C-alpha cells in the first residue's frame, strides 16, 4: 500500500503538536528551545512533502531558508540564555517571575 501525501502530513502534524505540547509543559528554557526546533522540523517535513508531491523546487528553497532562520534563532536564543544565566544561575522559568507573568 503506497505512502500518500497525507501520511506525511499527518506525521508532520503529530511532530508539530508534540513540540507545541512540549513548549507548554517544560519549565526549562533550553528544553523549550529544543521543542521549538522540533516544531520547525515538522514544518520542514510538510514543505518537502508538498514540494515533492507537486514536483516543484521552490518548496525546497523555503526549507533552505527555514534552516538558516532556525540556526540564527538558536544562536541568539542561547546567547540570551547565557546572559541570563550569568546574572541568575538558573534557567528554570518558574523562578523568573520578576515581573508578573
Amino acid at each position, binding site marked *: 500500500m503506497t505512502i500518500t501525501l497525507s501520511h506525511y*502530513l499527518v506525521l508532520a502534524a503529530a511532530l*508539530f503538536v508534540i*513540540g507545541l505540547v512540549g*513548549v507548554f509543559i517544560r519549565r526549562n*528554557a533550553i528544553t*523549550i*528551545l529544543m521543542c*521549538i526546533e522540533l*516544531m*520547525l522540523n*515538522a*514544518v520542514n517535513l*510538510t*514543505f518537502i*512533502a*508538498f514540494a515533492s*508531491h*507537486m514536483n*516543484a523546487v*521552490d*518548496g525546497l*528553497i*523555503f526549507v533552505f*531558508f*527555514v534552516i538558516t*532562520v532556525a540556526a*540564527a*534563532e538558536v544562536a*541568539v*536564543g542561547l*546567547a*540570551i*540564555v547565557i*546572559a*541570563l544565566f*550569568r*546574572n*541568575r544561575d538558573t534557567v528554570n522559568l518558574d523562578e*523568573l517571575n*520578576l*515581573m*508578573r*507573568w
Partner: protein
Amino acid sequence: LTLTIVALIVLVLDLVAGRGRKGALAAIAVVGTLLALGWSVSLWGERLVAYGGMVVADNYSLFFNIAFLAITVLTILLSTSYLRREEADLSEYYVLLLFCTLGMMLMAKGLDLIVIFLGLEILSISNYVLAGFLRTRLQSNESALKYFLLGSFSSAFFLYGIALIYGTTGSTNLGRIAQALQANRDPGPLFQVGMALLLVGFAFKVASVPFHMWTPDAYEGAPTPITAYMSVGPKAAAFAAFLRVFSQPLAAMQGEWAVVLWVLAALTMTVGNVVAIAQPNIKRMLAYSSIAHAGYLLVPMVASGELGTSSLLFYVLAYAFTTLGAFAVVILLSRKGEAGYEIAGYAGLGYTHPVLALAMTLFMLSLGGIPPTAGFVAKFYIFSAAVKAGYIWLTVIGVLTSAVSLYYYLRIVVLMYMREPAEESSAATLTAGPLVTLAIAAFAVLLMGLFPGSIFTLAQSSVFGL
C-alpha cells in the same frame, strides 16, 4: 532596484556604525536614516516590481517605509542620552536598530510569503537582542527571554501556516495565490487551517489579546527607548504585512476571517483598556495601552475596503507619533536604573516641569482620542469605516472602550496638575535628544489633529497601490 539601494545604504551605515566612535555614531545613524527617508519620498508614485514579483515599491509600502524611518530617527534621538546614562552606550545598539528598520521595510514591501517571513525574522531577532540590551539588569534579560520564547513560538505557527497554504495553492507568491483562489472557489479545508495558522502568527506579533501575554513583561523590562520602538515599529510592520496578505489574495475568503478578526478586535480593546487602569508603573500602563490600540487597529481590518485601509494607515501614523512623544516624556523624567517609572512620581509635575507636563497632557489626550489631537481624528476615521461596513456593534464597543481608556489617561493628567509634588523630584536632565523628539512628536500630533485632510489623502493614495 532602488529599494535594494535603500537597504544597502542602511547596511553600509551599519558597518560604519559598527566601528564608529560612540558620539558620532548616533549622528551617522540619523543621517543614514534621513538619506533613506529622502530616497523613499523620491520614489512616491511609481509602482515598480523588483526581483521577479518578490518585492514591490508601491505607494503602500512607501507610506509605511516613511513611517518606519521617521520612527527610527525619533527612537535614535530618544536613546542617545538614555544609553549614556545606563552606561551601555555601544555602537551595536544602533546597528541592531537599523537592522530592525530594514526588517520592517522588507516586511512592508514583501509580495511573497518568503520575503515577509524573512523580514519578520530579521526584525524579531534584532528586537530580541535590543530588548535584552542592558545585560547587567535582570529585568532586561528576563524580558528578552520571554519575548524570544513567545516570538519564535509564533514564528513556528506562522511558518506552518505558510507551509499549508503553499501546499494547497502551489506557490508562496501572493499574486499567484490570489489566482489560485479565483480558480477554484473553495480550495478545501487544509487551506483554511493554513490561513488560521497564519492569523495566529500575525496575532502574536500584533499582540492582540489571546496572544498578548508577552507584551507587558517585554515592554517593562526592555530599555525605555526600545519599549517605545517596540510598541510602534514592529506592530506597524506586522499590520502592514497582515493587511497586504489578508486583503489581496485572501479577499475571497473575507467572510471567514472577518468574523475572527471582529472577535479579536473587541477582545483586545476591552482587555487592553481595562487592565491598563490598574497599572502602577507607567511603562506597563503604556504597554497595555498599546495592546488596546492594536485592538483599535484591528477594527479597520475587519471593515476592510478602501476607506478601511486608508483609515488604518492614518491611525498607525497618529498612534506612532503620540506614543513616541509620551515615551520621550517618560525618558526625560526617569532616572538611572528602574527609578522614576512609577506613576505616583508624576504628582505635581505641572509645577516642577510645566513644559513636560503640557506635552504629556497633549499625548494623553491624543491616546485617549480627544478632539484637538490626532488621536481623535484617527479614531473617528476607523469608526466611520467600521460603521460604513456595517459593523455597528464593533463601533459601539470601540467607543465604550475608548471612554474607559480616557479614565486612566486623564488620571495622569489629574495627578500632574491637581496634586502637589510628592517629594522633591530631581530636575530632569533635559538632554537634547528626547527634547527634539518631544517637539517633533507634539508638532505632528497637533498637525494631524487640526488639519487631517492632507495626511488622509496621502493615505488614500497609497491604498490604490495595494
